[in-house]
């Protein structure tokens, strides 16, 4: 038998059901990998007992002949943006140090209800702001991948769900939750050669998820393959009356309807995504992806998304604007860090607490957001950006006249070295260029691994679908997965 930690969600679920192994065995194996993987700095908090309790419950249920829940016996990692009852939650920021929620986010509660257990809380970019996981207050997450040049440069796992990416790729957990505001599931998934899907905005409840940009934030799974993503998304999603933007719709059985037969489907190739400076390897993989989908029965059509070039600027107005307001609650009054210099008044306490508690990238975005909302600038920035957002959504609406899903690269580069872009925020923001339009339009989008570049690093392909049509996205992802034959994995060096 292969190593148990090589298994994904479906294999573990089925193995536990069939009695091939016990859930406890699985969880102990992953707990051991978590404990041995500290060099990756993927976990902020380890919760082996939580995972074991879920595993024991699964084993007990099986012994009693009960029907097992959809993810019974599957231990997962939880991005630290999700509030978890009784387990420290910091969003990787000093400002939330010492904060332990007395409540469980809806998404994590849904997962526990589905039988999953928690291996620990995963490191991330602070408040989910970043594309390299270098903005965490608790140190960089390191990608398990190394370039094939024989060097040992530490690579970025992508961000903001960098801990999730690193932990799944390094087999510290079979799957993990991520959140995606402007690519934070898809880009790190692409960087480490795994799959990840951001569902339609509103599928997963935001209740109990530390907010970055409310109109964009969506949770989703990160896992080894498309099927695992379908199973886990099914467990995470669902209407939540506690989130006013939650979609009051039943959750489809995505797993059962998975099919890589794309006959009759049309795949759009947006010409505006051919951006100067994109490495040739990425464009070649994109062409290859189109070929694979054609091979699966789809028709390939060129489409136009004319406002694409305005997406990134609009995103970097809307997301910081919302963040500047969402992060106002971290004021040192009720929880987390409080800095109270001698003789300080209320305003002094705010200033000292926030200066100490927030990292530089978070401060940068709060300042951008405050600026674009301020009197005299609001119309020029925020109102304009909202108009752009509407135009981008219309671009997609128009595109759906011609195609069912859209294929594009996930990111404009493979993983870069830690520190290589850390002092150039704009270069960093450009990482999101392919990911952001789907976020602004609230559409489901996923990244699946397509191959390796010349340095031996994974490259991802992105599929964007119509609102609520996660199924077509997953099916196209499955078709690529089956043809790409992506089996590469990082050698264990940690």
């Amino acid at each position: 038998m292969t190593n148990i930690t090589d298994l994904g969600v479906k294999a573990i679920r089925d193995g536990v059901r069939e009695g091939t192994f016990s859930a406890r065995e699985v969880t102990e194996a992953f707990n051991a990998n978590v404990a041995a993987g500290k060099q990756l700095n993927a976990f902020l908090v380890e919760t082996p007992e939580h995972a074991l309790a879920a595993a024991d419950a699964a084993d007990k249920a099986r012994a009693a002949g009960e029907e097992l829940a959809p993810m019974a016996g599957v231990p997962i990692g939880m991005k630290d943006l999700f509030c978890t009852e009784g387990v420290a939650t910091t969003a990787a920021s000093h400002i939330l140090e010492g904060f332990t929620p007395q409540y469980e986010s809806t998404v994590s509660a849904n997962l526990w209800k589905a039988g999953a257990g928690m291996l620990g809380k995963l490191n991330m970019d602070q408040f989910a702001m970043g594309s390299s996981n270098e903005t965490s207050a608790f140190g960089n997450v390191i990608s398990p991948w190394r370039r094939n040049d024989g060097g040992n440069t530490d690579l970025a796992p992508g961000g903001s769900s960098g801990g999730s990416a690193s932990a799944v790729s390094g087999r510290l957990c079979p799957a993990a939750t991520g959140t995606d505001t402007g690519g934070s599931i898809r880009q790190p998934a692409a960087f480490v050669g795994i799959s990840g899907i951001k569902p339609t905005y509103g599928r997963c409840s935001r209740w109990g998820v530390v907010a970055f940009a409310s109109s964009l934030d969506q949770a989703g799974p990160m896992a080894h393959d498309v099927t695992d993503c379908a199973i886990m998304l099914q467990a995470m999603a669902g209407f939540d009356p506690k989130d006013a933007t939650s979609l009051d719709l039943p959750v489809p059985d995505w797993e059962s309807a998975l099919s890589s037969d794309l006959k009759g489907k049309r795949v759009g190739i947006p010409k505006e995504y051919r951006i100067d400076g994109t490495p040739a390897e990425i464009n070649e993989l994109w062409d290859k992806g189109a070929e694979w989908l054609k091979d699966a029965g789809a028709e390939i059509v060129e489409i136009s998304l004319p406002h694409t070039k305005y997406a990134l600027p609009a995103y970097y107005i809307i997301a910081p604007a919302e963040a500047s307001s969402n992060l106002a609650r971290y004021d040192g009054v009720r929880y987390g860090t409080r800095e109270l210099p001698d003789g300080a008044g209320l305003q002094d306490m705010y200033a000292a607490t926030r200066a100490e508690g927030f990292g530089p990238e978070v401060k940068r975005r709060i300042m951008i957001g405050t600026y674009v909302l301020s009197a005299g600038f609001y119309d020029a920035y925020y109102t304009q950006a909202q108009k752009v957002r509407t135009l981008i959504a219309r671009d997609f609406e128009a595109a759906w006249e011609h195609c069912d899903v859209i294929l594009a690269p996930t990111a404009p580069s493979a993983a870069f070295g830690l520190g290589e872009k850390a002092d150039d925020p704009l270069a960093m923001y450009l990482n999101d260029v392919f990911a952001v339009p789907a976020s602004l339009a609230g559409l489901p989008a996923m990244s699946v691994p397509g191959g390796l570049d010349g340095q031996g690093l994974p490259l991802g392909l992105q599929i964007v679908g119509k609102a609520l049509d996660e199924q077509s996205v997953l099916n196209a992802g499955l078709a690529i997965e089956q043809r790409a034959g992506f089996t590469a994995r990082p050698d264990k060096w940690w």
Partner: protein
Amino acid sequence: MTESTYRIQGATGDWEVVIGLEVHAQITSNAKLFSGASTEFGAEPNTQVSLVDAAMPGMLPVPNQECVRQAVRTGLALNAEIHKYSRFDRKNYFYADLPQGYQISQLYHPIVGEGVIEVALDEKDPDSAVKEIGVERIHIEQDAGKLMHDQHPTMSYVDLNRSGVALMEIVSRPDMRSPVEAGAYVKKLRSILRYVGSCDGNMEQGSMRADVNVSVRRPGGELGIRTETKNVNSVRFVQQVIEIEANRQVDVLEAGGEIVQETRLYDPDRNETRSMRSKEDAHDYRYFPDPDLLPLELTDDFIADCKASLPELPDAKRKRYESELGLTAYNAAVLTAEAETARAFEVLLKETAAKQGKAEADVATQVANWSLSIAPGVQKALEVTADHENNTPAANAAILAMVAGGSVSGGQAKEIYEIVLKTGRDAEEIADTEGLKQTSDTGAIEAEIEKILEANADKVEEYRGGKDKLFGFFVGQTMKAMQGKANPQVVNELLKKILG
């Protein structure tokens, strides 16, 4: 429409005062605007705080439909435009009583648009001087918490019980020109809110408070610069703020100064307003649509249901009392000013009409006089309130029926009522056992009259000779002989007949 003649007499001439009010009215609801926490007044600090109200990480607001319904009903009661599409915005600022760091309000798309309130400027003659005050808008917003500065020598404490409670902000047009008009507006608005049941109007508990905008100008001239005095919590204070602020502004202008657009605070102890912050220090609130909330979209059915649920409102009721019940304008106005007064009146009216077997219109004046002057007088003397448990409509109706039937005099009615309030005994039983009845027995009265006329033959002579004044003397003597229990009307009639 009546033009106000209220003027501030300055050294350089007359000044006209221009007033606009922003009234914050707490919406009557069991739960807060965006959370399930209770809104009950007077609870221990921080016992009515949900995770949302404390702005814990990841918490989200969900609109309370009841608050939306009450705002729409209020708008309909003011004949205002109901906006089928409205939206919540965030007003961003830092303060310790504002856990989210923003207040959820409605700046760009309020739920209610233009409406109007008719106010009577003369309570004695409500039909004579009516003024229409425009309402610009009503929007829904969250209340903040409360800072407590008296709990610790060096620190302030925060009570979040009020944090997130639903408010309606009712913004008037700058249509008022005198403290009297402003007072009448606040009273009328409070009356309507209480009729509708969307706010209890309790200014002492802070469930209704006003921001008072005041400017002065030469009569009919260009609008002056205004100041805004925040959180004024009684009708009297609103009127005082206007007087003080208008006079202060006139003094500044006449001394050659300029009015600074600023926010001021009222200090009732010193009866003065003080600057809180000037326009330069004004917050930049960075309003933007709250991304946690979808726009509110109201259906025609919802609005129709709100409309159908409205009670008869004070103006309509007052007019009906005059036209259908034949009450004086003054009585109608006083009886309809407060929803509770009107409700109690109507209950007693119904009971009285039934008891006497008459139409309501035929007993309305009797009930109105009783309710407005006689009963309150007795209550006041006994130091009890109208909601006293013995003050039942049945007891009142029984007394009124005895009065109407002539078996009890007005004075006896008061005595009976007093005993009813004190003991809860049956009114008719009291009249019988306490001897609080008058007789209309003509035989008995005539017998006494005969005796009196005999004993006072000289006065009878004088009366018949033209000294009419003596009639009162005979009445008095007869009543005395009857120990005050004769029906005065019968006594009068018999005396007139016998004296010729």
